């Protein structure tokens, strides 16, 4: 099944002219109403909460297709207590500003290699770990950057933290316990896992 691209604005119930403040307000209201931990109707609440977060995912398919010629289709979507990756190679990117995201992309080595091969000019060999790390970091950066464009609206500015690539063997860091949506996407070269942990800025 192809990834269904939903419109942020429609899902959030705001117009395309909405400011970042309006988007933030709409997100907060919907999340408060439908978050599975607080929704009165657990089934509807969970489905709606997933839909809101899933809508943020339309950039993933777009970027992977354009940059790496990889078609993604949705495998599953689950809720987790922390953005802990379950695959060998991870890339961590943060968004800071009026919202705070921690996004942990995870994939197997063959997927990382496939992305690199697709992004690199044909005549050049994929001959170093540094090159692979560069490719997967850039993909994570571009996907997150696209999401930040949509979330920032016209009035606000969101910043990205530089991508950090980690191997499973390096994962000695503790992930904070933040409710996380884990989206698994399937392609011809394997699975891309995207863990999205979203918290709003406490000062706003």
């Amino acid at each position, binding site marked *: 099944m192809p990834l269904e691209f939903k419109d942020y604005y429609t899902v959030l119930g705001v117009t395309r002219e909405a400011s970042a403040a309006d988007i933030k307000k709409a997100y907060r209201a919907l999340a408060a109403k439908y978050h599975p931990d607080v929704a009165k109707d657990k089934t509807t609440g969970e489905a709606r909460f997933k839909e809101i977060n899933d809508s943020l995912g339309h950039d993933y398919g777009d970027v992977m297709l354009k940059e790496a010629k990889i078609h993604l289709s949705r495998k599953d979507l689950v809720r987790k207590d922390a953005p802990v990756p379950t695959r060998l190679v991870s890339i961590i990117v943060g968004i800071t500003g009026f919202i705070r995201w921690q996004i942990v992309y995870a994939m197997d080595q063959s997927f990382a290699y496939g992305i690199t091969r697709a992004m*690199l000019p044909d005549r050049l060999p994929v001959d170093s770990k540094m090159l692979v790390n560069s490719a997967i970091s850039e993909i994570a950066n571009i996907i997150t950057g696209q999401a930040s464009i949509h979330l*920032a609206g016209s009035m606000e500015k969101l910043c990205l933290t*530089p991508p950090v690539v980690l191997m499973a063997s390096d994962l000695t860091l503790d992930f904070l316990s933040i409710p996380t949506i884990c989206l698994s996407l399937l392609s011809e070269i394997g699975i891309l896992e995207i863990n999205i942990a979203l918290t709003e800025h406490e000062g706003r």
Partner: protein
Amino acid sequence: MYSGIIVDDAMIMRLRLLEILGNYFNIMAMASNGQEGLDFYAQYNPDFIMLDISMPEKDGLHALHEILSRFPKARVVIMSAVGQRQIVFEALKLGARDFIVKPFDSERVLKSVKRLFEVKGRKEGKMET
């Protein structure tokens, strides 16, 4: 042939940009952070510079500001995944000639750089393509 410098912290993007621009322009150097880009600019005095925004050491917007303070006629093209409206305005206000949002395609990049050397609809004489 016009000369240029590519500044991007991602090795894969430097290679891709070199592939796109290398046949049309003389790419004199490639840098992986803003400070290095600034140093190379001062050293090579190229005709244009491609500048990423999110980089360690010195980010692209700081480098843009410093390059244009020291070399007011510098032709700078900004490339970034973080193409939020506020950031695009900031870059153009600082004096960037163009802002390319990643992901980009070859034609978009090539068109942007070629346009730097067009004067009133005509290409400047130095172009050899």
